């Protein structure tokens, strides 16, 4: 009986709300095989499927470093004469895969890197042990997409970056963790430039089409734009890629390759996961 009740109370699947105008011209592609995005298994969406993901070592190195800025917290710690050290962590990850749509193939080579600085505070208490407070980070994701297209082979470069700086006016109860974060991205070839923007959304839609609002904005995905017109959306909530159906085949597979690479990253660029 209990099993029956639990299975009947399954939470509805949520999606990011997408503007109706874009929706009318776009194709919705659900991603299969993504899991948490950390695995080696390939993913499928629409008529695109990737090879098995060839991953390198996800390496992290740490060392004590000089202060690059003094946060408000540190100024008070100084006055209280509490032991603290500035630690820098350097995390790197590499992976590669191929993606094809049945006619065209693209090879993707990606490098992810995050350098984060934190203040480590020694409390000498077994319950609190060590506390750490993030001070800043520089995150970057760089990928090269080699497109073996029937019409014309081309190379696309993908760059995503974000940086954070600890500020006194940050709201410690803001769950978006986007205070002080600067984010941006670009996907370029010789001819085209696509701007990538992160989306922090409060509006979600259930799989039955019901609108649901979160109490606060949360990182929900990315939108890809050309001249301020949205051409694709990557939805982290519903694990869905929306793509304008009127795009050329070359651009479509380049966007599919870039979207797959973004979804297959293992290092995160948010404060909560520093």
């Amino acid at each position, binding site marked *: 009986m209990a099993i029956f009740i639990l299975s009947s109370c399954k939470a509805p699947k949520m999606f990011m709300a997408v503007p109706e105008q874009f929706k009318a011209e776009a194709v919705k592609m659900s991603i299969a095989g993504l899991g948490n995005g950390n695995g080696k298994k390939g993913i499928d969406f629409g008529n695109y499927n990737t090879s098995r993901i060839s991953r390198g070592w996800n390496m992290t190195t740490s060392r004590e470093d*000089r202060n690059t800025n003094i946060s408000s917290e540190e100024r*008070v710690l100084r006055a209280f*004469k509490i032991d603290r050290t500035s630690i820098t962590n350097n995390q790197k990850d590499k992976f590669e895969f191929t993606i094809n749509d049945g006619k065209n193939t693209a090879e993707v080579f990606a490098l992810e890197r995050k350098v984060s600085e934190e203040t480590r505070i020694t409390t000498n208490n077994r319950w609190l042990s060590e506390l750490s407070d993030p001070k800043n980070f520089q995150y970057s994701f760089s990928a090269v997409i080699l497109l073996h297209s029937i019409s014309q082979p081309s190379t696309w*470069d993908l760059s995503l970056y974000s940086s954070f700086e600890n*500020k006194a006016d940050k709201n410690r109860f803001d769950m978006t963790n986007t205070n002080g974060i600067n984010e941006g991205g670009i996907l370029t070839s010789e001819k085209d430039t696509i701007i990538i923007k992160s989306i922090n959304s409060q509006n979600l839609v259930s799989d039955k089409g019901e609108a649901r609002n979160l109490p606060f904005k949360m990182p929900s995905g990315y939108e890809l734009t050309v001249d301020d017109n949205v051409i694709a959306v990557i939805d982290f909530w519903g694990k869905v890629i929306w793509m304008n159906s009127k795009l050329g085949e070359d651009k479509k597979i380049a966007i599919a390759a870039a979207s797959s690479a973004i979804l297959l990253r293992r290092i995160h660029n948010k404060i909560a996961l520093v």
Partner: protein
Amino acid sequence: MITNAIKVLSIFLFIGTPLFSYSQLNKEVLQTDMEPYKMGGRKNPLSKNISFAEYKTSNVQRKVKTFLTVGTIDPLNQILVIESVPLRRNDKYRNRDAFRFKLETGDGTYLTTECAAFLKVDERFRLLQKQDSSFWGNRNTDFLIASIVPGSEPLSKWSLVASNLNASKDVEQKGKLVCKDDEISFIVMNLLLKENSSQYLLEQKFTSLNMVYAFTYKNEIVGAVSVKEIGRSFWIKKNADKKIRDAIAATAVILTIRRNLYQ
């Protein structure tokens, strides 16, 4: 043990109150086409010399006064304390760093560099009052001066002045190099730069975001050096004039081997 934990918790509660103002360092993101070079050396505290691109340091010498801190003892700092929580603190001290080195360049010439950094701290903390500007380091004096003399042209000496390199104030960390009519300025910022100079064409295309001292000459970013020790690198424009390239390399060494005077 417990009092220390109480102190830490009270600090975080204290931070939550809207007493403070804080100005963020000016951070920018730019895409540049500078060539990257790994900086070797400094992997252990005993290794003084560093090498990068076609440059190598030698004869790194520090003066004894570098290791001395001179300060005023305020007896009330020790008296006005309840359960290790200070009711007020006055901190006044001076720290110095003075060093010299030779920088050998790829063509056999060298530059002689002398540097002196000075930090005077004058900070006040009041537990039960609104903090004044001295709490934010506004009364601190934090500067660095240096001279870079090319061995082949001793009259073409570069003078370097920089401020707030120890981040003792909430203002930009920046500096300027001057030689006759030439002027190079630098500032701490985030830059999207080439990851490494690998022999593989694909790896040369990778970029990463780095916190660097970015050098600007004639309104163009021509060089950069990492602020952080981890994965320290140097970037320089390939076609940069040798005189500018050498001056930036010598300044990069100064910024790398200087001591952090603000503890």
